[in-house]
């Protein structure tokens, strides 16, 4: 209970810090939104007028406090660029990002579990070496490139649906594969390593000595222990997936949070950038908290100790 409270406070502190840092970094960036929106041909007077309309003529501290006050009331503010509430802008793009993250996580989990267990169970075998090679290749390929090649092969040549924009499930297959393969390959390597460690551990010998079958020893005794670092890593990645896979969204023309963030930065849309960063920070911290929780379920010591 107490631990939960501390955790919540931690989370809040991280998010608050992220907001302040984002806000200040944005201000530090050269480039004035009013100038960007007014365009190259606008007169100085028009720019000043626009600055006033956007509230950018106020001192930095006032702007920051105003923004923080709004955030506390759960109001993400209004996009400078479109004039629409940032909350609506995020909400419009969230389904795409959520679906992409879910699909990519599913692909990633399948790759990680399958590849990790197969390679980790027999670390010196031929299969392990092939899998290791495959995983490394996937990791070495930039998502951007992988996505392009996938589009060229599957969409241009074979006519599969992609480039959906709205992100219907069918259109998400390729982007999820490109994105999930990466997460999966990285996690599979971690899982394989910790699984082969676990196979040499004393407790496994005990389990086998007590007459447990090979697969039971592997799946019931070794795997849960080996999963802990993999799960932690996977969930950290998961937070990032939710925060928007910018490159994947760009290649596959998906209208998600990540792409919105990039556009907003380009246009110095302060409220939008702060709003999205805030959201991503929340996703990452929550995802980490979920990883902790899951590890506690997997690790009996953590369960008993803290109860």
């Amino acid at each position: 209970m107490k631990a939960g409270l501390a955790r919540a406070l931690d989370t809040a502190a991280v998010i608050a810090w992220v907001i302040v840092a984002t806000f200040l970094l944005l201000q530090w960036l050269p480039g004035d939104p009013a100038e960007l929106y007014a365009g190259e041909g606008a007169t100085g007077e028009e720019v000043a007028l626009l600055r006033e309309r956007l509230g950018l003529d106020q001192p930095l501290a006032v702007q920051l406090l105003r923004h923080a006050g709004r955030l506390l009331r759960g109001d993400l503010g209004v996009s400078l660029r479109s004039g629409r509430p940032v909350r609506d802008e995020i909400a419009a793009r969230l389904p795409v990002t959520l679906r992409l993250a879910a699909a990519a996580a599913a692909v990633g989990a399948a790759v990680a579990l399958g590849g990790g267990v197969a390679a980790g169970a027999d670390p010196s075998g031929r299969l392990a070496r092939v899998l290791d090679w495959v995983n490394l290749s996937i990791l070495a390929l930039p998502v951007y490139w992988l996505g392009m090649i996938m589009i060229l092969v599957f969409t241009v040549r074979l006519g599969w649906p992609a480039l959906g924009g709205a992100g219907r499930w069918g259109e998400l297959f390729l982007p999820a594969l490109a994105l999930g393969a990466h997460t999966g390959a990285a996690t599979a390597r971690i899982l394989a390593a910790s699984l082969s460690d676990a196979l040499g551990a004393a407790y496994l010998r005990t389990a086998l000595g007590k007459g447990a079958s090979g697969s039971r020893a592997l799946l019931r005794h070794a795997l849960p222990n080996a999963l802990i670092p993999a799960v932690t890593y996977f969930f950290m990645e998961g937070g990032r997936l939710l925060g928007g896979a910018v490159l994947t969204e760009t290649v596959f023309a998906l209208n998600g949070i990540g792409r919105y963030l990039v556009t907003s930065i380009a246009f110095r849309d302060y409220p939008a950038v702060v709003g999205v960063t805030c959201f991503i920070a929340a996703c990452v911290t929550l995802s980490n908290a979920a990883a902790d929780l899951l590890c506690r379920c997997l690790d009996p010591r953590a369960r008993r100790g803290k109860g």
Partner: protein
Amino acid sequence: MKTRVLIAVVNLRRLVAGCVIAAVAGCCLVFRLQAPAQETPARSTRQERPVVLTVALAAEPVRLDPHDARDGPSALVNFHIYDRLLETGPGGELVPALATSWRLLPDGLTYVFTLRRGVVFHDGEPFDAGAVVANFQRLLAGSPPPARRELVSPYVDSVEALDPYTVAVRLTRPFGPFLRHLAHESLAMVSPRSIRLAQAGSPFHPSGTGPFKLSDWTPGDRLTLVKHEGHWRGEPAVDVLEFRVIPDGSGRALALETGAVHLAYPLDPVHLVRLRRQGRVVVEQVPGQRVVYAALNLARPPLDNAEFRRALNMAVDREAIAQHLLFGLAVPLDSPLAPATWGYAPAIRYTYEPLAAKRLLAAAGSEARRPFELWSPSSRYLQDKEVAEAVAAYLEEAGLDVRIRLFEWGTYLGMLERSSAWDIAVLGWVPATGDADMALRPLYYSGTRGNHSGYASPAVDRLLDAAAFTQDDERRKALYREVQSLIAQDAPAIFLYAMDVTYGRQPELEGVVVHSNEIIDLRAARVRLPAAGAGRPGAQDGTGGPR
């Protein structure tokens, strides 16, 4: 002991492999089945299918309030939702639209417009003199002041309804480009009800008299317009106009290639060349009004010396840049104006003379031996980074020490505004009204914000004013001819090239009109239905066309 584990592992391996295969197969099945399943309701008989025209744009419109929008995508979409009193034809001539005729009274200040009868806004409000007056009043004194008011407010004194279909607009002084300002996309006629609501503080409701009306807008993804039945020009041939946002240039090209969209704009030169070679889609280029130039900072010697600046113009092979870096999608400039701009006259064609340039630059002495800062945005204009590098290389060839700095656009604008540490800055400009005044005044009139060079020539200022504040078109053209040669002579910039407007479309899309000010006019567009069974890969499962 280890062997027992290994035996189990062999069994397990089969299990895992089986699971993976099953999972992948399942995924494929689900994903493949799901996509067409969503389309089935629309798949009825051919006649009932609405004709959808899908367009891929690089950026999303910012706002659908023409008086308050400044960006290209908004102008393009608003062009289809709203009508203007008059329009510029593809050749730059003025043609009637909501005003059927107009005349200038002998006082030289008052324009009288006769309005089209029987026109209705999308929200049912009638279009009449009252609506025109309401629009002008918003532009002149609306609150909050709309961004585009500078197109009318300095020039218009009063607007009056003479009768329900006649309006008189009185100017403060004779202003030559006035009718071209009225033809600008942003001086469109908005429903008086939308204006009243906006003034009262509620969000803007887009309602015009144009051939299409707003149906749906998913921010960042797509914007759908449907045809406005009973438009005065006649009903459009397509039922739905869908704009999709695909910021990535490769993504846009691929969307066109796979048949996911009918039209993609703009197309990056690299893809354009490839698509043209493949020949499956139609790639077109139309002379545009966007000029790209390298402004010279006149405050930093030796750039204050006109002789030196002229030598810089001779040092750069703009022909090669246009041909090889822009793949022939640009024409070298021989004036500060693009040939497509009204009032253009060839001034000086600086030819590429590397040896003469080198000699002239060396003549500037020790001042010319300092390092020169060349700044350029990256990814703002087509191939801007490459062009900046080429210009730097030519100048180095001519004996200068040039250092390139590339910026992201937002940073670039801020840096140019704040810092004067640059010598050469790559910039672009497209005059939205298509008139020489809009092309020259913001860049070369002394003291204007877009005049980054700090160029100040009393003669140019005087000529620009004289040309703007007269209504005699022949006299205006003569004055602009003079201004162009003066500016070219003074060379406050290295005049590089004028960009073509380039786009790609499916062969079955017809009737697209492209204006030199980067408006793609789809009002008369038609989509030919492909012959049965001959559809393109993506074209078979759409609702009335490619998706």
